């Protein structure tokens, strides 16, 4: 569970879609930060056992924050900045080929 500090001078608001639902992120947010701010309780389930995982290191080394962004799977959410209209999907198991 994460909340924004007040007052928040972080850039403007950006709308991203998380599993189809709109959410207001900030321009300096990584996709991982946006997911945590949106109270997503997990961002993927593992391809090995289906266990739920969420961002762990926020710096690109743990590979637990893998999500599908705009149709492309296995993107590291903590290394990608949000952009207007971005579609983020919780990745369940293995990524799918194509797109």
């Amino acid at each position, binding site marked *: 569970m994460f909340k924004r500090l007040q007052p928040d001078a972080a850039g403007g608001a950006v709308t991203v879609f998380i599993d189809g639902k709109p959410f207001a992120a900030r321009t300096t947010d990584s996709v991982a930060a946006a997911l945590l701010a949106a109270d997503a309780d997990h961002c993927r389930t593992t*391809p*090995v056992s289906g266990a739920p995982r969420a961002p762990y290191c926020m710096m690109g080394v743990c590979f637990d924050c893998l999500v599908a962004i705009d149709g492309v799977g*296995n993107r590291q959410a903590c290394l990608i900045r949000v952009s207007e209209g971005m579609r983020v999907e919780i990745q369940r198991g293995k*990524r*799918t*080929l*194509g*797109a």
Partner: protein
Amino acid sequence: MATMPDAGRDFDVAVIGGGLMGSAIAWGLARSGQRVAALDEGDIAYRASRGNFALIWVHSKGLGLAPYSAWTMRSANAWTEFAGMLESQTGIDVAFDRPGGFNLALSEREFEARRDLLQRIQDQRNMQRFEFEMIDRERVKQAIPQIGPEVVGASYSRFDGHCNALRLFRALNTGMQQLGTTYLSDHRVERIDYAAGAFRMTTRQGEVHAGKVVLAAGIDNVRLAPMVGLNIPVRPQRGQLIVTEKTAPFLHYPVQTVRQTDEGGVMIGDSQEEAGADATVGLDVTAVLASRAIRIFPQLAGLNIVRSWACLRVMTKDGFPIYDQSTTCPGAFNASCHSGVTLAAAHALFLAPQIAAGQLSADDFAPFSSRRFDVQALAA
């Protein structure tokens, strides 16, 4: 914890080499009731087995030595039973599947060259013939919908398959130890001495004694061979591999240079370079492997490479296996090849029992003796 045996402890057989070759043979020997020591190097070693593509591949092998095709087919046909035995013994499922294999052609020229090669194999004297098909793009697409537009057709045979080679290795290693094999890692053999009908292996961790010895040490066989009166001309040949992140299953057939493992990663090969004992990854070769894979399956372009590595194949002079037994040091045997997965069943079920009995049958193994190189030299 596997440690050095007590001084004076003897084994029936010492297998030198703990990769797929050595492990399959050791397992087969243990099943035949032999007391086996498997001697392996440490954590950092060449280990050709790490470079395998996990194929049980038949249909394009044997041009130049028809008995190799027969031996390969015999192994492939025994694989189902072999996998079943490993599973019931160890509980490990090595994911063997034999749906038939494709070699995809990216041009008419490749297609024709392929057909030509396969026909020449079938037309050899003493060849045990089997069916293969040259199939057109449409039929390939029915089996493998994701093929790219450049794929013009393929060769196909129903005799090819694949497995999970890491689990195969683990099943063999676990299985052989369950059958009483003493597995000794960090026991690189420095020398072998033969005296009074027995072999003494000297390692940095002490000596190992055995009535028989099997050289299954890959490219290190060259160094060990003369110590026991054998000739094993093998050289390292570099091959590179790429594996991608795990992906939802899309490719069920083994395709000769691209296959999807049962865990979801896509493996891509297959390069050959004569680079000596240098296992450095060359990015230009990796680039070619990647681009060819994408021409075959365009949707692979967006997949991430998780690992790329190079290994040194154990390449004999003519590419065919060498199996021998020593005349000057009876009880010394050798097995060298670069198809340790395909031939694992044969090594475990057919070669190992003959080693256990102390004699390789001429019918099975004469064509693979290193004496063929002397004949070739004479004929040259």
